[in-house]
């Protein structure tokens, strides 16, 4: 009898977890509809429905949905999901709850390389933008590791990240000064502008993104073991170095893709894993899934806010996520100091 009970709880069907996922999916769906409906001009739900399923190109409202808001929505989903996954991985492999591709300079490294490539190597097509973004992200990551020594859970990691972020932001600002007119559009993009992005940019990056997201889930078992501590993981048979390098590579690809599409959007990777951990704590498979959905939700809501707080003007989505993320960051730091 006892054994039977145990067998059940060891491989039992996770009803609570799964219903949480369904609830989150529902929330994402509602937020998505809101996203399509709200904006400079409010559009009613019937028109949204028609635009999606019985498209009539003569109706201007339906055109707005199809041509502008739908693209924004898709980009928000992709950006939210990718940044959230990148945040989970970064926090896991650095054993540091403050790790985030934005805070650790990876986003700004990618952004600098993208801007520099547009300025100095215009002969490469725009298809190469993600590659430059990856290079920049990887370069920034290496710089942070060199500066911090990759110590477990160390504050030096965050400080190094701040320094690298400042460095790349300054260098990007210099580039923008050199070419004022040509890069006016970039300035907008550099504060994390989903509005400036379109589906074409997504086409450059989606193969990398899909590959990276699938790869995240192959790290689950090793990450679960790594959660017990680096030494325990190693003695359980985890190749710790390989885990860290592949985790970092995934972060570089995910952040690089996001930066290419929407510019450096911060704090999503910091906030989302902490929220997800309030709901699921013991398995990275579920943590990834929950983070992916919560990140999506956060970005859709942020993008809604970005479009309606100063209606009819728009602010950049990255500014909204910073407003949400900065208090969380401060709260995390305060808790750590105690």
């Amino acid at each position, binding site marked *: 009898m006892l054994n039977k009970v145990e067998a059940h709880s060891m491989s039992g069907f996770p009803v609570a977890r799964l219903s949480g996922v369904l609830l989150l999916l529902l929330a994402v769906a509602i937020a998505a509809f809101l996203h399509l409906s709200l904006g400079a001009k409010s559009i009613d739900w019937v028109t949204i429905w028609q635009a999606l399923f019985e498209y009539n190109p003569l109706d201007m409202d339906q055109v707005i949905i199809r041509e502008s808001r739908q693209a924004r929505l898709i980009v928000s989903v992709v950006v939210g999901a990718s940044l959230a996954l990148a945040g989970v991985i970064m926090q896991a492999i650095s054993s540091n709850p403050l790790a985030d591709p934005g805070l650790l300079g990876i986003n700004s490294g990618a952004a600098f390389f993208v801007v520099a490539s547009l300025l100095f190597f215009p002969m490469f097509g725009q298809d190469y933008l993600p590659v430059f973004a990856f290079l920049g992200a990887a370069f920034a990551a290496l710089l942070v590791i060199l500066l911090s020594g990759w110590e477990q859970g160390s504050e030096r990691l965050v400080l190094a990240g701040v320094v690298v972020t400042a460095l790349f932001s300054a260098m990007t600002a210099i580039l923008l000064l050199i070419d004022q007119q040509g890069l006016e559009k970039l300035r907008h993009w550099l504060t994390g502008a989903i509005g400036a992005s379109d589906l074409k940019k997504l086409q450059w990056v989606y193969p990398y993104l899909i590959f990276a997201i699938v790869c995240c889930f192959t790290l689950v078992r090793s990450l679960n073991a790594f959660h*017990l501590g680096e*030494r325990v993981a190693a*003695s359980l048979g985890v190749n710790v170095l390989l885990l860290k390098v592949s985790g970092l590579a995934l972060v570089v690809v995910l952040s690089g893709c996001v930066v290419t599409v929407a510019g450096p959007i911060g704090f999503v990777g910091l906030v989302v894993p902490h929220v997800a951990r309030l709901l699921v704590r013991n398995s990275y498979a579920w943590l990834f899934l929950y983070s992916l959905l919560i990140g999506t939700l956060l970005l859709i809501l942020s993008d809604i806010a970005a479009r309606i707080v100063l209606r009819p003007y728009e602010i950049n989505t990255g500014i909204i996520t910073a407003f949400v993320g900065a208090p969380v960051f401060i709260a995390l730091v305060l808790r750590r100091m105690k």
Partner: protein
Amino acid sequence: MLVIEHLNAGYKNKQVLKDINLTLSEGGFITLMGANGCGKTTLLHSISGLLKLASGDVFLNEVSLLTLKRKDVAQRLALLPQIATTPSGLTARELIMQGRFPWQNWWRQWSELDEKAVNDAIEVTNVRDYLDLPLEQLSGGQQQRCWIAMTLAQDTPVVLLDEPTTYLDVAHQVELMNLISSLKSKGKTIIAVLHDLNQAATYSDYLVMMKEGEVYTQGKVKDVFTKENLSAVFGLDAHIITDPYNGTPIALPVVTLPDNVASTADLNNRQQIHYA
């Protein structure tokens, strides 16, 4: 049989282990002893591959562990390192189940064999009562039992333990040592680092005494646990008596009476002995 040949290892600028040669036979309880910083933990880490060797080789049953993948090492040899922090958000059972890591992969997740190994480990370590409680809610002794259960669930012929009784109170230490020594009867080879001299003498079959990164002496407890060796390895002045109940040797540190002038060295040495 575990054979260590010309092992040199250390950290960045400091060589810790100098030309270690050891042949440890299968079965039984082997204890590594020595003063702080003599390289006991470094040796355990070197054997299990946590630390890259500068030179030398480690063979388990004539297979060089250095040539194996991490997972293959973990199927042969389990190490429980010193645990500094309790992982958050796990129940005792979830921790123990992690011990099956080296036997699984992403297409073969949870088998009957895994189930059996985990149940056996739970049985031996007697952690059934708090299996579904979060680790954070358990006492130090209970947590340590769970870690040992995880290590046992790994189901390896050789188990390495790094100071398994640190931070536990006396009753829990004894309980845990009894548990560990009972593993011998399951055919496992236990290699442990122990700080408590008398615990080492009571429970071990074989002692390896280390000094400054080298093996000072090794052998059966009765042959090695002597006044001379303790003095040489620990700088400890102690009488050796025989435990009237177990027949094992016991070290009684020579007490400096208050009217004698106690030198600081003596005081330091005395602090290293915990009375069990």
